[in-house]
């Protein structure tokens, strides 16, 4: 199902929401939102059945523009609201939009438990390595040595590996993509939405305003070039000797399991009781 840019605007963006949007020039978040809309369109999901649950931060602001059921929640807690929505009505497609600070720092506990209980939610983590909306402070994904407003002498702490975290916590599907590799991102996102259980997709998206400028990137274009140069298919990355890996990072699918989501297992439990009631 091909869809043109105009059709996307007419079908999926809210007509009564006043633009312009809040995103900076060069931001990758718009690419994520476009990919999300195309993925939903590709899967043919009715707009009424799609729920976008967003946290706080630049990523959280994306929800307001799209014509789905949208819930802009509190900082770090998107997954908790999404858990309630999914358990209350398992027919809904629940997609969480979170940032790196949102999902991994303040919401880190919710992230590991959502993955552990394998609840049928799609978690999109937009990783821009920084707290963008609040002015460029360090997040748990800020690379060691990078400069931020709260690490003016360089970040001392190591950063989280989101993919490893989700794998370890037991998610059904774990993947990473970038906003430079858009076609690949769309394929990953379609999978992350249609599959059962907890599906985590980390999306590397540049923030030139708050991260790039203070580090080594003169323009936002340079950041996209960096993505192009350093994102490697998982297989190719693993073949690479450790000494040659440098800034390179793996993208693709890391875990793909078909275990039933919590809401499906709960439905099975209820079916046992209702069979007892009726028979």
């Amino acid at each position, binding site marked *: 199902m091909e869809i043109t840019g105009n059709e996307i605007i007419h079908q999926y963006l809210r007509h009564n929401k006043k633009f312009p949007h809040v995103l900076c020039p060069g931001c990758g978040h718009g690419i994520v939102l476009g990919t999300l809309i195309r993925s939903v369109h590709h899967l043919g999901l009715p707009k009424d059945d799609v729920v976008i649950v967003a946290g706080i931060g630049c990523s959280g602001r994306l929800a*307001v523009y799209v014509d789905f059921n949208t*819930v802009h929640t509190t900082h770090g807690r998107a997954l908790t*609201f999404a858990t*309630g*929505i999914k358990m*209350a009505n398992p027919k809904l497609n629940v997609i969480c939009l979170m940032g790196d600070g949102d999902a991994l720092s303040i919401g880190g*506990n919710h992230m590991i438990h959502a993955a552990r209980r394998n609840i049928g939610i799609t978690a999109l983590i937009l990783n821009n390595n920084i707290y963008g909306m609040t002015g460029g402070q360090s997040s748990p994904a800020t690379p060691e040595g990078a400069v931020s407003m709260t690490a003016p002498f360089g970040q001392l702490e190591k950063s989280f590996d989101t993919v490893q975290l989700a794998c370890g916590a037991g998610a059904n599907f774990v993947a990473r993509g970038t906003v430079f590799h858009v076609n690949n991102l769309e394929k990953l996102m379609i999978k992350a939405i249609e599959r059962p259980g907890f599906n985590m997709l980390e999306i590397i998206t540049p923030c030139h305003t708050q991260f790039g400028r203070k580090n080594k990137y003169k323009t936002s274009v340079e950041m996209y070039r960096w993505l192009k140069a350093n994102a490697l298919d998982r297989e190719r990355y693993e073949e690479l000797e450790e000494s040659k890996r440098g800034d390179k990072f793996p993208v693709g699918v890391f875990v793909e399991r078909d275990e039933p989501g919590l809401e499906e297992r709960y439905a099975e439990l209820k079916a046992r009781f209702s069979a007892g009631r009726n028979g």
Partner: protein
Amino acid sequence: MARRKKNKEIFALGNEAVVEGALIAGCSFYGGYPITPSSEIMEIMAQRLPMSEDGVFIQLEDEIASMGAIVGASMAGRKVMTATSGPGFSLMQENLGYACMTETPLVVVNVMRGGPSTGLPTSPAQSDVQQARWGTHGDHPIIVLSASDVQECLEMTIIAFNMAEKYRTPVILLLDEITAHTREKIRIPQPDEYEVTSRIVPSIPPEWYKPYEETVRGVAPMPPIGSGYRFHVTGLTHDVNGFPTSRPDEVVDLMERMHRKIDQFFYDIQMHDELMIEDAEVVVIAYGSVARSAEYAIEQARSSGVKAGLLKLKTLFPYPRRATEKALANAKSIIVPEMNMGQISREVKRVNSGRASVRTINRVDGQIITPSEILKVIMQG
């Protein structure tokens, strides 16, 4: 046989009565995290909800997540609740504020124990009264109820759900450890015996629907997520469409409507019981299990010829000003016994504004205020 059925009685804990009340009121979603002395509520819900028609039970990773999950489930159309105690209630404040801001109906039962912090885990207290009113940041309307015996636990839980749904607001039901952990015979009402209220849903087409529109009652219809009414919900200050705004006129409209929807229904929300108050010269104002001690003390005082009376508060906030003023009419002195350092007595003093003498009895040692303690103060005149 039919008569016997009509009077189904059980010998139950206050916490069990809460569950019975919730199920009668139509609660079909419980999300929570265990904490003494409220855990029985969660344990019984874990048994009952999976066996019920459409009930959902989920144990969350903490109380922050519990509150998030029930807000989400309420948005998806469920009647929802959670139960906790002081430390958990502190963690819930963040998303409780979100529920106030997004006008999401829900019920929180807080079985109070001694604080601050981990405090006295299994001892009674009434130390979360002001937190229930002002615990989450920002000006917000909220309804806080209390119950003093096991039958009331059942009844006030039903009322809590009804008010939450009717006014689209969080309702906090405050119990104390004594009420929650006392067993008494209670009557389970028949399904048709209680009025059960559900939130109104829009009847207009989705394209006309404005989720935060002004209405006669100040409460807008609320459709469940996924029913064809797609709109935006945010904890940011929002306009009638639910979109974020910082325009002063839109901000003030929202804030005033949110408060007005509660303020104009004080007559419905503010509940109390009176005992021998008409001619009372000494009035005890109490709530929760302390009201039972007070009742005992007042009976004894009357039998020694002292004109004592009881104003038992069932609604704590919005504070029942009118009932207090009535009690103050003849009273020479007011006694406010509480298992805290004086959290309702400050409300009483505010309403009293110097008319009668207000004395307090405060205990924060994890022990109940006994009838004899109250009687002693009554007899002082």
